[in-house]
């Protein structure tokens, strides 16, 4: 199995989630993160005190999928999250050794 970590623009979350369910993803973890990258942040001024905010709000998806599904999931995310504007995000793939579903005790691919 693989762990797919993707950062995308927050307003793309629903679209991506729907697209993924259609390709057979049945679960994921979503976290709000602060992203740092080439997309520049913004500056806030409070009574003359300037604060450069270098982070932009992003959403991080963590999805564990069977090896077989990996490429499809990656390409689906890439396709859906794309706006061609800087800051669209990245997708990383890591290897997962084992998985377990707490409720049933099922393991690995059955657990997904």
């Amino acid at each position: 199995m693989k762990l797919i970590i993707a950062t995308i623009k927050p307003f793309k979350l629903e679209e991506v989630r729907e697209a993924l369910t259609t390709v057979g993803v049945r679960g994921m973890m979503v976290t709000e993160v602060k992203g740092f990258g080439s997309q520049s942040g913004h500056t806030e001024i409070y009574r003359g005190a300037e604060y450069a905010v270098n982070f932009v709000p992003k959403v991080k998806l963590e999805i564990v999928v069977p090896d077989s599904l990996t490429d499809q999931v990656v390409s689906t995310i890439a396709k859906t999250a794309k706006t061609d504007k800087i800051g669209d995000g990245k997708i990383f793939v890591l290897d997962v050794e084992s998985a377990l579903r707490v409720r049933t005790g099922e393991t690995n691919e059955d657990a997904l």
Partner: protein
Amino acid sequence: MKTMMKPAGLGALLAGLSALPALAQETTEAATETAAEATEVVAEVVATMDKGDVSWMMISTVLVLFMILPGVALFYGGLVRAKNMLSILMQCTVITALVIVIWVFWGYSMAFGDAPSPYWGGLGKAFLSGVTLESMAATFTAGVVIPEFVFIAFQMTFACITAALIIGAFAERIKFSSLMVFVALWVTIVYFPVAHMVWDSDGLIYGWGALDFAGGTVVHINAGIAGLVGCILIGKRVGYGKDNMTPHSMTLTMVGASILWVGWFGFNAGSNLEANGGAALAMINTFTATAGATLAWVIVEMIHRGKASMLGAASGMVTGLVAVTPAAGFAGPVGAIILGAVASVICYFFVSTVKHRFGYDDSLDVFGIHGVGGIVGALGTAIVDRAAFGGIGYSAASMGEQLYTQFLAVCVTIIWCGVVSAILYKLIDVTMGLRVKEDAEREGLDLASHGERAYSM
């Protein structure tokens, strides 16, 4: 207020003399009586209490409390980081409680007691001794009195808010217990005497004929200076200029500013002590000056930064309120708009530019807004009061003379407040320490000093 306490004393005396029923009875009955006298062609004035005045002064008193809790508390609290929120709320709350008790014990007497000194009122009325249900305090109209308890309560809230305003200057680093000791000493040695000097008919500054309708010098300049001295002596916050110190809730700051505006009508129109045309003028000026100042700040910011910010609008609001405080009962509505706008522009450049040159850390711009705005207002009062500028022309002196008198009043306040405050801060610093440990400051005062968190979502 353009007050005169001897008359008050007098009024109370008068009240004391006349028969109790005469005092308890209804204005109508009083009228009957006076009418009766009238027929006997007797002209002497009997001190009468009008329930309309009492009603107005009571709600005004409530409005000033509202300005502090939760007004100032939220205005300031929203501007600090979440980890220090409760420390601000706590300081405002306990300062209010503390000053109320001190006011009853010796504050009222020191400020408005009977001693015929230009510097203080003595201790004759300590613990409000001698004040009864029947005691009356004079207003600005001969023969019109209000229950002394109302006057005491109204003035009490002024002392509380002045002390509470100071804390913004050294927010996020002050030691709670030390602050309480400072406040107790400060109101006693600085606030009460200054209030006496400016508002009591025996008062030094009052004697000069300085105009201060609702407390520009006593409240705002006083607080601004105490704050400035404090933040300089206490030093900058850890990470100042390096860490991100954005306000944790501009929403709450806006709510606080709004409540300040709402409550300020008690502060300004209440200072008229009567519910009449004079109060009405103070009220409309408290609307127009604030509006003018808010617009001015917003426009200047748009020109200077390209964007108008909520903090800007809120700052303009408060600046306008501060500036019109001494002028509320003297200016005309249009003059007030201009006074507010001018103060706003000056304060804007002060807090956004000048201040950063000097590099002291007046965390929430107590001096930049209350100090500077208060000074602009105090001086401006001499101008907007002129009939030529739509004012009621209260001052008999020439504009130049009045301006000079106002200037003197400001100087005395600045010097007295500045010197004494500095001494007090130093004193406390060496004895119990003014500041929390660096770790505590990093962790945040809420957990470190009060063992709580403001939010747990």
